[in-house]
Structure formats: structure tokens, C-alpha cells
């Protein structure tokens, strides 16, 4: 890869990917552990230090109740990651199920591509709002809503992949030998598509986090008592006019970094698993 490849400092794709995975996992673990340790009811409200700009003591500043923004951001990121992980795994399960169903016969195939069309015909954000309203909001509602809107691209990829696998001789032979469609799906298709599924799940993850934050920001997601990033940012809007820029800047930046890290990891793993440029 040519990204950071200098003459002095040449990392190949494999080393680089492993490095980014390492960093991402580290960040991920730190955030999760921290957010589990922080009890959201216990974030200190200290009215003697309200609205303080960032300092060494409070590197993200404090809010209008004197709460440390760094702690709140960490907690919020933890929540986002949990919801994002849940949603992307659920999303992949839906995608895999539908893709395998579409391989069974041509009616199911038409049905699946029809369902994909239905879900793509309404803007994502509107669909998430609708599902979230339908399920009464909250963490459960958002997770399901995000999961049900992000499976389409992976389904398309898998469906194309499965079509190609099905033209192979060994799959046809298994069919002739009387193996069931389900057996073929399990023994031939799944092992060959497992990498695609993993990469797909990782690549859904950043989008899931971002959409969760957006919907929460709009007021359809997590309840206002949770310190989710979306809630923090929508609260910060009320204090922007008074010049409390740190309330909006740092939590959003933290979210951006997480999304970026996972995007890079996903893309690099995708490149690594693709034999045409794995050895760059």
C-alpha cells in the first residue's frame, strides 16, 4: 500500500492491517472497560466547576452541571459501541439468512431482492425513525432499527457471491448426489463466504454507530438520561450560543475517531483477503 509507504518507512499491507487492528482493539477494550466501570448515575455533578473549558484536570471540559465531559464521552462511546456491535451482528445475521434463502430457488430469490428494494426505497434515516417509533424507542428500538436498515449491501454482496459459487462443479455435483439445499448452504456456501461475512459485519459497524448517534441526536433513540453521544451533542446545542464549544467538539471528535478506526480496519482486512492485492 502506498498510503504511508515512504522510502524509509515501508510497511506492507499485512503489517499495517495488523497494526491498525491492534490499535483499534486496544482502544475498543479501553473504552468498553471504562464505560462498564463508570456508573452513569455516579458521574459527579459539581456545581462549583460548571462550564469550565478544557484543562489538564478536565481534558474535555465540564458541562453546565459540572460533570466531567471526558467521563461522559467515554461512557457514551461505550454505549454507542455496544449498540453498534449488537446492531451490526444482527444485521449480518439477517443478511446471511436472506442471502442463503435466496439461493434456494428463484421465487425466494425474487422475494429477497424485492425486500432489498423495499428497504432501499425509503431514506435510511426515515426508516430508522419509523422502526424506532414502532418499537417505542430506547436502546432496544434503536438497535433493531439500525440492524434492519443496514443489511441490504451485505445481502447483495453475498447473493452475488453465492450465485457464483453455485455455478461451480462441486456444488452442482452435490446437488446431483441428492444433498439438500440446506446441506449445500452449510457445507459449501458458508465456508466460502465466511470472510465476506466477517468483513461485512466490521464494515457495517461504523455506519451503525453513526446512525445510532444521529437518531439519538434527533430524539428517537436512547432516552435523555443516558449519556449517549447523540444526547450529549443535542444537549450541547443549547449551550453553543454561550460559547461552550468544547461540549460539542470533543464528543463528536471522539465518535469520528472510533468510526474512522473501524472503517480503516474493515477496508484493510477487505484488501488483505482479496487475493488480487493482498501482497502489496
Amino acid at each position, binding site marked *: 500500500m502506498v498510503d504511508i509507504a515512504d522510502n524509509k518507512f515501508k510497511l506492507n499491507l499485512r503489517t499495517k492491517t495488523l497494526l491498525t487492528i491492534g490499535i483499534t482493539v486496544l482502544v475498543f477494550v479501553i473504552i468498553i472497560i471504562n464505560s462498564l466501570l463508570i456508573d452513569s448515575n455516579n458521574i459527579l455533578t459539581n456545581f462549583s466547576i460548571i462550564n469550565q473549558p478544557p484543562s489538564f484536570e478536565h481534558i474535555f471540559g465540564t458541562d453546565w452541571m459540572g460533570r466531567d465531559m471526558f467521563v461522559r464521552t467515554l461512557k457514551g462511546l461505550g454505549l454507542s459501541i455496544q449498540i453498534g456491535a449488537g446492531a451490526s451482528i444482527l444485521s449480518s445475521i439477517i443478511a446471511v439468512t436472506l442471502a442463503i434463502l435466496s439461493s434456494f430457488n428463484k421465487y425466494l430469490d425474487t422475494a429477497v431482492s424485492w425486500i432489498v428494494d423495499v428497504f432501499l426505497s425509503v431514506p435510511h434515516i426515515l426508516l430508522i425513525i419509523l422502526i424506532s417509533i414502532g418499537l417505542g424507542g430506547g436502546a432496544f428500538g434503536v438497535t433493531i432499527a439500525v440492524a434492519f436498515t443496514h443489511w441490504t449491501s451485505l445481502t447483495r454482496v453475498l447473493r452475488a457471491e453465492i450465485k457464483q459459487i453455485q455455478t461451480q462443479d462441486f456444488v452442482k455435483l452435490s446437488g446431483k448426489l441428492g444433498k439438500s439445499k440446506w446441506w449445500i448452504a452449510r457445507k459449501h456456501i458458508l465456508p466460502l463466504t465466511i470472510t465476506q461475512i466477517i468483513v461485512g459485519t466490521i464494515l457495517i459497524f461504523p455506519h451503525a454507530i453513526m446512525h445510532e448517534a444521529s437518531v439519538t441526536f434527533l430524539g428517537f433513540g436512547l432516552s435523555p438520561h443516558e449519556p449517549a453521544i447523540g444526547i450529549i451533542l443535542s444537549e*450541547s446545542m443549547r449551550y453553543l450560543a454561550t460559547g461552550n464549544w468544547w461540549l460539542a467538539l470533543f464528543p463528536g471528535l471522539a465518535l469520528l475517531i472510533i468510526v474512522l478506526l473501524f472503517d480503516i480496519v474493515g477496508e484493510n482486512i477487505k484488501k488483505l483477503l482479496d487475493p488480487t492485492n493482498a501482497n502489496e
Partner: protein
Amino acid sequence: MYFVFISLIIEIIFSGGLFLNKNKILLFLANRFVRFIILLIFVIVLSFILIDMSPIDPIKTYIANKVVSPDQVAALQSYWGVNEPITVKIVNWLGNIVQGNLGNSLIFRAPVIDVILDRFVASLVLMFSSWVISGVLGFVLGIIAGFKRDTFVDKLIKYYCYILQSAPTFWIALIVLMIFSIYLGWFPSGLGVPIGSLSQNVTFFEWLNRLILPAFTLSILGVAQIALYTRDKLIGEMSKDYFLFAKARGETGWSLIKRHGIRNVLLPAITLQFLSFSELFGGAVLVEQVFTYPGIGQAAVSAGLRSDVPLLLGIVIFSAIFVFVGNTLADVIYNFVDPRLREGD
């Protein structure tokens, strides 16, 4: 540079556009349209079921804070058929839609169709301006990055795109709001106009002033996808034999890019830009919310938060039409305007 794009677009359209097989296009459109109508019915039923599942109570929204007797509530319930089974409700609703009646918005106290048309015009101005700006800017940046591959400029453009692709739209909007309207004070922060004020009540200048920041935000965000796509596509074209041959013949610089690069990259890029209507709408929802721009997205959020079911369903229908128009235009360009594909059939 700008003229080159326009002349190229015109050239592409004239070289084929006027001589397209009209019957074929009509047949294609009719087919798409029928499929869309079925799809739309499906979407309506689906959203209806979702809203019906939810714990929201339209009667409560309608009476808001007024004091009403239980008799009046019961009368309203029977008038709106709240307690009827869902199948009856859906059939009634679909029947009304076919007659062009989308019901009355509960929060705006006006027919849904009026509210939507009013809001949609405001949003279309916002979305169209940022769509054009981000398309042109993204294409230019993509061409530059692709042509200057692996140089400092390329890296700069690439990282800019990567970062913006990972940035939450509403956060960028907040930052833009903070910089330009609070620190620099160039634009109104948009928070001065209450939710639900109609766009006719603001003067043109005020309205333009409020349009600039949201359009700017949507534009800088929309650049990322199209720039990265154009870059990859151009790099792909540049490694093809005809391109190498042109280089070997001694063509260099701008004329090489114009004659062999842009010509082949422009159509896919425009197609992609048309396919982005869905994301554009999503971005508009968030940006309108931050800047309190009185558009369809803001109406959708208020409708959702304050359980205005008829308005929300109406917006779902119109947004689906919006996305459909984008996809269909992309398909037409892809299948009928591209001279290579056209000659194929």
C-alpha cells in the same frame, strides 16, 4: 474548467440523447413505474404497521393540552376509527391516498399535502444546491487526486474524504454553526425562528441567509463519496491500454485527462450522484434539524417526536418518490445515455 464539463455533458447528450429509442425508454419507464407503485403500497403498509405497533396515541396529540371530556375523546376515536382493526385502517388509508387525500397534519393543523409541498420546496432548494456543488466539487477533486496520484495533493484530498465520510453529519453541522454563526457571526444561528413558522413569512434575503450554511454543510459532506469514486475510477482508466497508448503518443497533462479521463469517468460519476438521493435526504434531515431550516426533514422529525402520524406517513411517501426519481434517472443515464451500452442493444 467548468465550461468543459458543461460542453462535455452537452456533447454526450447530443451525441445520443436526441436519437434515443423513445419507445424503449418509455417501456423501461413504464415498467419501472409499475414496479414502484407496488413497492410504494408495500412501503405504506409496512410503515402503517410500524406506527400502529407503537405506543403513540394520535388522540392525545390532537387534543394536546386542552381539557376534554371522555365523551369527546370517544367521539374523536370513533371519528378517526382508532379502535378499528388494522386491516380496516390500512384499507381506509390507502383508499384516501388514491383519492389524493393524505389527511390533516395534527401539529400544523393543515392538510398534509400542503405542509409537505411547502416544506419540500424549501428542502429541494437546499438539497439541489448542495447536490450540484458537491457533485462538481467532488468530481474536480477526484480528477485532481486521481491524476496526481500518490502526491501530497492526492493524500490531502483522500484524507479529507476519509475523515468526512466518518464524520457524523449533525456534528459537522454543529461545528459549522459554531464557527460561522456564533464565532464569526456571519449568519444567523437559525435558532431564532420557532419550529413551525412557515417559509412564506420570511423575506427572501433572510431565507437565503439561512440557506447558505446548511447548503455549505451538506456540500462539504457530499464531496467525499463522489471524489473517492472519481479518483478510483480515473486511476482505473489510467491503467488501461488506450490510455497508455495515448500517453505513449505524447499526450500529456490536461488534454490527456480531458480527452481520455473525464470522458470516461463523467457518466459513472453522474450516475453515482443520482443514486445518492437517499443519503442526501438523510443528510438534509439532520442538517435541517441543527440549523432549524424549515424543510421536509425538520417536519419529519417534529412529526415523529410529536406523533403526527398522517404527516409522517405523507413524508415517507414523498421521500420514497424522491429516491425513486433519483434511481430512475441514474438507470436511464446508465442504460440509455452511455453510447457504449446503447449501441450494445
